[in-house]
């Protein structure tokens, strides 16, 4: 069953962000499943790129979430900001470079690298394919697991938001091994790890270029979030492959999805949509042409394009 998605327009001051998150949580009438003593906030720190690029979660949004949680559930709860190493990114450096160490000191929260957690391997079947994942166990124990994805485009999947950010929880750094079956892997990991709440950081979103969208989007269902996020970014969600697989695998349903608060249209109008048909083909064409050229001419490949 789909769920409600709250959309709130915000500005980039800490107080505004906090108020917008509060407003969005009230819109969806969020209630945790039980008493809240421990909270895990999964941010999206895919690489050492500043939040202004639209690639990574803004620490200001996380600060706003922390303040909201403490106001609602008490000052003594244990809050962790979590991320796992990726193929090219090391969490310890990302926490420092992107302002999370400073945030942790100011807000008195723990920064935790999921790649250093107790890890169990779990296998799931998605669309007839069995996929194994390294699962950080402590994530399964938190009272409130909050997913804080970005709103951005990605050449391989068209959009990346709530479901894709959970893919970043896989403890093994070399996530690139999942890329040949990325859509199935996104659905697979979401079958194992189920966040209790999704708060999308759409302060700066990433389309053809970064744009100050000023959007906070909230829901308890990642599938519903991604469905609406696709619409915000100007794509037909029924044509996003991992959403189609998610429906097939009963991870999400269209019935019950509705938006509250601001209209999708407001954000859709200003989002710089990427034409994937042309960009993906153009990129692939360039790489194929370069490969062919270097094979015939025996020319050198610049390091940035090596091993393509």
């Amino acid at each position, binding site marked *: 069953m789909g769920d409600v998605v709250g959309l709130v327009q915000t500005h980039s001051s800490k107080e505004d962000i906090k108020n917008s998150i509060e407003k969005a949580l009230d819109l969806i009438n969020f209630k945790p499943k039980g008493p809240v003593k421990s909270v895990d906030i999964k941010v999206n720190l895919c690489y050492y790129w500043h939040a202004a690029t639209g690639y990574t979660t803004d620490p200001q949004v996380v600060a706003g979430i922390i303040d909201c949680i403490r106001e609602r559930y008490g000052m003594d709860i244990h809050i962790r900001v979590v991320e796992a190493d990726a193929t090219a990114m090391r969490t310890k450096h990302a926490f420092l470079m992107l302002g999370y160490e400073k945030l942790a000191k100011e807000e008195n929260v723990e920064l935790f690298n999921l790649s250093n957690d107790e890890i169990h391997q779990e296998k799931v079947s998605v669309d007839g394919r069995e996929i194994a994942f390294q699962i950080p166990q402590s994530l399964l124990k938190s009272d409130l697991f909050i997913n804080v994805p970005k709103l951005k485009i990605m050449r391989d999947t068209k959009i990346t938001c709530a479901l894709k950010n959970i893919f970043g929880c896989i403890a093994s750094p070399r996530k690139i091994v999942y890329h040949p079956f990325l859509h199935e892997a996104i659905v697979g990991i979401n079958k194992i790890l189920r966040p209790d709440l999704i708060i999308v950081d759409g302060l700066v979103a990433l389309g053809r270029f970064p744009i100050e969208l000023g959007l906070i989007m909230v829901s308890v269902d990642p599938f519903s979030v991604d469905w609406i996020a696709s619409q915000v970014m100007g794509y037909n969600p029924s044509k996003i492959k991992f959403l189609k697989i998610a429906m097939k695998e009963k991870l999400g349903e269209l019935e019950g999805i509705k938006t509250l608060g601001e209209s999708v249209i407001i954000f859709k109008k200003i989002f710089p949509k990427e034409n994937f048909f042309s960009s993906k083909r153009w990129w692939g064409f360039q790489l194929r042409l370069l490969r062919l*050229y270097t094979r015939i001419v025996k*020319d050198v490949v*610049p*390091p940035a394009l090596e*091993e393509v």
Partner: protein
Amino acid sequence: MLNVGIIGLGHMGRLHMMNCLHVDDVEVVAAADSSKRALKKAKLVGVKHLYTDYHDLLKDSPNVDAVVISLPNFLHFDSIQLALEAGLDVFVEKPMANTVEECRKIVRFVEKSGRKLMIGHCMRFIDAIEKMKATTGKGRIGDLQVVTIEQILNGPFAHGAVPKPVPEWWFDPKKSGGGVLIDLGYHLIDLFRFFVGEDSKIMFASFDYKFNLPFEDGAIVILCSSDSYIKGIVNVGWYQKSVFPEYNFRTILHGNAGYMSSDDLVPRNVYLHTVKEGTKNLLRRAVGKKIKPLSYSYYYESYYKELQLFFDCVKNDSDPSVSAIDGLKTVELIEEAYKTFGEKRFT
């Protein structure tokens, strides 16, 4: 035939190795790297002697005449010293070494050994810079007054087509020698010296720490030539997300009769340039002529040109245009900027 050893097969080492394969009368006979994967790649292009420790390559020197060193910065001093002691000519990536003290010792090693040492000041060999240099002093812009040079990229944090982690030594300023100033800034300060051609001093430097790292990721430096008082403004950063083929670099020469900018001398459309130069190489190959390696990328070609010059100097027993003194003087200016205006010194 000149037999060459490649020491260090990381990002730059592999590029140099591949470029060496295109230089006439040069054969890459040995390579050293701690990564077996990197050595496997060297083997694939026909390198016979492979070492996991560069000390072994320098001890064995299996018919090696010259080495190309692309090790992490903190290993430059040791490897240059050993290579010169082994009687080899040396091409080394910048910086020559991390400190002025090490650089001065290297200058003495070179004098004592009588071997060639060339530093990889590749930006002097960018086509646009070569054209600007050829024009200066010919009245086109009058008397040179100010040189502004800027380069803002991702530096070691650039994300390649295939993602790879940034090597850990980059995060340790004791090993890297500092931040963006000793990395990209090194080239820009060298370019100022290249155009002004005199001893210079640091007038002012300001460092930024946008990424909260224990070394600067942005720097603005003002230099002045000691005799002619020509000023240089260097603006360098690692903080900008950059994706190939984007290249946020420019040099502007301001004279009292006009100005000249490298932006006017680089291809307006890099894609068209690539296709044009690629087609030329295809035609060269078709008629059996030698190709111009990497000419399809207007700035990567400079890496090939600097290596070719080094090997020409070795073969002809002439002095390289970028000497150990150039390496020393550039590091002197960087150290002066760090010591006088920086909050920290790393070594």
